[in-house]
């Protein structure tokens, strides 16, 4: 088990460096001179510009810049933005909000998604199956920004059930953005559970369990469900990453001051270090959630062994 974990970890090392370098190169290839843009219309003397460029390593070749940057990352230094504020400071202020939003969205999508999927998968072509099939495709088809405005208008403004936008003092104001953020994944989870359960129910060992005289509840709950959860668990773990990084639109619409809104603002204002810092954080989340998937596989399916 330990050796397996180590091998997986080794596997992710090149992925980490390539992915972060790719984004680093892209961000610092952005058109325009961020230092000049910082000064706006005001005249700046050449020496100040030069000093700023030197401080942010903008005069080095790209690869050297990246190496200097990544060295900093491993010593816990993510650099500063152009206004001298440490990037880690910005991140640690934004992360808790995004994590809270992700937790609410994650728990609601996982519970409702699996429930709907099981109800649909138990009887193929039944009423629940058709209902879940049509409603999930509908949710997936409505783009998240349209859904966000519709939910904000109908549930927030018209019915007044939820707070219309985020308020740091009331955690309930996170419910509406979380409902919107988790809706697409909820639909995918329901569809996955449905197909997977329907397929598993036709497996030989399920027929054996039924033939042994086990109750339907036991056959489904113990034998079928556990095995059919494998693709669902994979999806859930990978989804943690996309909930954290995919909240750009939702956080924007509901005014949630999280990572998504921060990274979008940083891209627009060419704050390269902030963009790269957030991407590094998201890549790490992605790798950790993928490692979790690998271990969950074996926990759920006894046929899978770590070599």
């Amino acid at each position, binding site marked *: 088990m330990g050796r397996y974990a180590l091998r997986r970890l080794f596997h992710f090392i*090149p*992925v*980490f460096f*390539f*992915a972060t370098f*790719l*984004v680093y190169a*892209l*961000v610092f*290839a*952005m*058109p325009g001179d961020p230092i000049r843009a910082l000064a706006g219309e005001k005249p700046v003397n050449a020496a100040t510009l030069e000093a700023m460029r030197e401080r942010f390593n903008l005069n080095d070749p790209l690869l050297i810049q990246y190496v200097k940057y990544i060295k900093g990352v491993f010593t816990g230094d993510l650099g500063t933005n152009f206004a001298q504020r440490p990037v880690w400071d910005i991140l640690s202020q934004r992360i808790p909000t995004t994590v809270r939003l992700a937790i609410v969205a994650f728990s609601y999508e996982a519970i409702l998604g699996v429930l709907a999927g099981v109800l649909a998968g138990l009887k193929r072509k039944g009423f629940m199956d058709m209902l879940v*099939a049509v409603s999930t*495709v*509908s949710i*997936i*088809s*409505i*783009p*998240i*920004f*349209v859904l966000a*405005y*519709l939910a904000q*208008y109908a549930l927030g*403004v018209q019915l007044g059930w939820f707070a219309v936008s985020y308020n740091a003092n009331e955690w309930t104001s996170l419910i509406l953005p979380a409902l919107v953020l988790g809706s697409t994944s909820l639909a995918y989870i329901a569809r996955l559970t449905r197909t997977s359960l*329907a*397929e598993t129910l036709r497996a030989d060992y399920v027929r054996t369990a039924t033939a042994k005289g086990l109750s339907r509840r036991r056959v489904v709950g113990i034998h079928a469900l556990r095995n059919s959860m494998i693709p669902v668990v994979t999806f859930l773990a990978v989804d943690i*990453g*996309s909930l954290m*990084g*995919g909240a*750009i*639109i939702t956080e*924007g*619409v509901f005014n949630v001051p999280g990572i998504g809104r921060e*990274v*979008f603002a940083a*891209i*627009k204002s060419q704050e390269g270090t902030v*963009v790269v810092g957030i*991407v590094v954080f*998201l*890549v790490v989340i*992605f*790798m950790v959630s993928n490692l979790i998937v690998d271990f969950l596989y074996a926990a759920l399916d006894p046929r899978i062994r770590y070599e």
Partner: protein
Amino acid sequence: MSEAELVEGAGAFPQDVAEFEAVTGPPRSLWSDAWRELRANRLFVASATFILVFFIMALFPTLFTDADPRHCLLSRSALPPDSIAWFGYDLQGCDYLARTVHGARVSILIGLSVTTFAVLIALALGSAAGFYGGLVDTLVSRATDVMFAIPTLLGGIVILSVLESRGLKEVSLVLIVVGWPTMVRLMRSSVISTREADYIDAARTLGATDWRIITRHILPNSIAPVIVYATITIGVIISAEAALSFLGIGLQRPAISWGLMINTAQTRFHTSPHLLYFPGAFLSVTVFSFILMGDALRDALDPKLK
């Protein structure tokens, strides 16, 4: 078929191919089988009809509206729908029905072109990686790993913000760049599961070249999952283009795109909801049709579900 029926029918079981075909008709391929099933599937027929309508809308928008989408009068800014302008007017006072109908072209064009290129990349890289394994496979797989580690929307935004101009070509290119890895992975695993089949060994024993084996045997037998996924991808890409344009980082004015229209609508949504409803509905129905069609294709092509 129940067991009793099987036993009863046993006496009449056809003895040779000719007799067998007399009972079942000529042999049918997976595709012709799927086609028979699809024609009977109401969801497929409905989604295909919608897609056809959107294609016609993209090709000949004037069939649906004779108003000029670029003829705008500020005096009728954001007027609600009435009997002349069924969808009302936008902020600049342009006919909203005309703009919505003309918006179909960009969506369909981007959806189709991006998916076509992604499928071509998948066919090339996926079958090379799956068929040859070894170094080619390692390189392709690691490349997809790297792409997967970067969140899709974020990656698209970063690349677009680097580009000087953001027209149809640039947005399509960016969507191809972020869209190919899933497709390649799917093709690769599909090829791997086909590669071990007996008929591949047979072809090789007969002296077939790699090229012939891949194009004549591997591709036709491993492409089904990619076709299903590609159909759904058209919908997903259309949605992604709208999202980028909505964020103000995709297509730019004066292009007519549903995403851009919703971008403008967001600030006026509470006073003029029609600005959001019409492009939002057209966008959703288009995406819905492609996903539904992909689902129907999967049900028809996947022997596991039969």
